[in-house]
């Protein structure tokens, strides 16, 4: 159908389109500027920027050359986020199922609003709560894990100091991303066709029977999308990790040991006293983080939007 718009309409549509395109532009500009400022580092360091092990600003006079590689921090980012997902996903599924199918109708709406509020808790509070309230508990769990499972390299801890480890940071990140995963999952579960659930009951099925046969398969891709949104948050988290982890620049896969970091906390730590060249390296690191989270988020968005479309 060909529509002829009046002059007023054409102006209106232009203005609105320009406004909408601004958001596309901002996203493109973020990538472009970070890349443009960091490209010198990518050229100088080559693939070692990702795979190397050192972050040294050098002595400035060329005697000790500057060397920048985000390898250990990239690994730390992934390790803490995976720990977070490992704990957050099952808990969120339980939370979402409880809210949708088990909670009494009276407290359900309260829980939903509290969940919305929980999703808006600034990440700074999770950092604050993590170091001040949670870490003593987390350290005890870490000590127990190391005591019984220490033979497994992942849980090895030779020093016997358990604070400020990737494990604890990962647990706090898990607490941080539970609200978003729970609310996306609950949303999808609530759209399960009522008649399918009811026919399960009519056939003599139990509540769990209906959940397992209908609700979980129906909501699977939604949960995956929610988990990926949570992952995106955990990957890019700055202050909570900054407050909860000792930034030590080495590959650390012993998750109970007190050292680690992620790219975002590296940027926050080094930013203040960075040399101009190091600053470029930080921008390059920011670019990598941007690409990483953007790809995770785009995948999540694609999954969630596809699920939304599949619903009647």
């Amino acid at each position, binding site marked *: 159908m060909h529509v002829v718009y*009046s002059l*007023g*309409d054409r102006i*209106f*549509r232009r203005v*609105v*389109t*320009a*406004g*909408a395109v601004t*958001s*596309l532009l*901002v*996203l493109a*500009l*973020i990538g472009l*500027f*970070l890349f443009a400022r960091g490209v010198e580092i990518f050229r100088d360091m080559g693939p070692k920027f990702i795979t190397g092990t050192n972050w040294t600003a050098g002595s400035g006079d060329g005697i000790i050359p500057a060397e920048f590689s985000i390898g250990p921090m990239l690994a730390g980012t992934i390790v803490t986020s995976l720990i977070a997902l490992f704990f957050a996903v099952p*808990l*969120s599924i*339980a*939370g979402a199922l*409880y809210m949708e199918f*088990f909670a009494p109708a009276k407290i359900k709406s309260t829980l939903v*609003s509290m969940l919305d*509020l929980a999703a*808006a*808790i*600034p990440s*700074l*509070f*999770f*950092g*604050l*709560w993590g170091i001040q309230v*949670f870490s003593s*508990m987390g350290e*005890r*769990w870490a000590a127990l894990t190391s005591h019984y499972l220490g033979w497994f390299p992942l849980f090895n801890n030779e020093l016997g100091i358990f604070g400020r480890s990737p494990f604890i940071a990962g647990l706090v990140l898990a607490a941080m991303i539970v*609200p978003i995963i729970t609310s996306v999952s609950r949303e999808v579960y609530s759209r399960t066709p009522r008649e399918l659930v009811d026919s399960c009951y009519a056939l003599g099925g*139990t509540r*769990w*029977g209906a959940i397992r046969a209908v609700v979980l398969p129906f909501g699977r891709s939604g949960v995956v999308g929610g988990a990926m*949104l949570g992952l995106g948050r955990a*990957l*890019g988290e*700055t*202050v909570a990790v900054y407050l909860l982890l000792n930034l030590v620049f080495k590959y650390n896969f012993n998750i109970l040991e007190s050292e680690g970091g992620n790219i*975002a906390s590296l*940027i*926050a730590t080094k*930013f203040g006293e960075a040399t101009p060249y190091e600053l470029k390296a930080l*921008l390059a690191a*920011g670019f990598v*983080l*941007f690409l990483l*989270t953007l790809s995770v*988020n*785009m995948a999540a968005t694609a999954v969630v*939007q596809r699920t939304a479309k599949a619903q009647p």
Partner: protein
Amino acid sequence: MSSTSDLTIQVVEATPTQPWHKPRAEQRRDALVYLALAVVAYAIVMVTGIAGPDGFALVFFVEVLLLTILRSRGIGKAKSTNAIISTVIGAGAVVAFAPWMSIFVSLVTKGFHGLYVGYLFHDMRVTTPDDELNMGGVGHAIIGSMLMVLIATAITLPLGILSGVYLTEVRGRLTKVVRFVIQSMSGVPSIVAGLFIYTTVIALTGSFSGFAGALALSVLMLPTVARTSEEVLKLVPEDLRAVSYALGARQWRSSLMVVLPTVRSGLTTAAILGVARVVGETAPLLLTALSNNAFKFNPFNGPIASMPMYIFGLLQIGTEYSIARAWSGSLVLMLIVLALFITARRLGGKDKR
């Protein structure tokens, strides 16, 4: 045959039964059983090496699980599986909700004693973080946050609404792309937004400022405002547009004078949710606005304090009083977020009528 006089009408009043609800007596018995289990769990925690609230929760969970297993003997496999898994899901939900419940409780209990009447009206110009808690305050940080958030709102609200209108009214060629990008943009890490403004605005102007901070917050706020605007505009009934076209309105008049005014409070909600999203952001301000200790009303001139940076700075000092101040600041910030949320809820309910 009996005569008609023998015919008595017996009125049977059926007591409504609700077979899906447990009877009162059973409910009471269950409550007593759980109470007894809690007492036993408490005793176990006191006596053995298992300690802390987490230890208590674990023991209690194991007890309830055992009880469920015992009770569900002989009722068939499907039913007993259902009972056991229901218990596990309930426990999982409790663990999932525990952290933020704990955060709310800690904010109140730990933040409360640092509050006093002047807390909201004083700055930290003459007070060091180690001073007694009845001096100094967050006034300067509240003003700083307010200035930055206002600027960010002034930037993102028009853009966000335009995006919403584009997605629902104009529906141009880029609709899918715009929607996808806005959704993905909400995942841009806050520190990356800070870096972006640092390499552009601060590199250009040569100084840290509240304005730069506001721009960084805008990047994070835009997706929330745009998405909420879209959601709200979608709720406008198609009939309303049709009616305005039928009355001879062009699209621009229909959109500006019919559609947008009907969702005025919904769009306010969009702005408020955007503000709630960014008011607690620390990372972008760490690279753009930094912080200061005194009241400041000019966002264009040098570093300026904000609520999150105030809290973050105190945390890094790490002394007893500075941490107490950090908790009090956090309590104030949480109350601000809560107030924003409640306002958004109230307004959000209005349009739906």
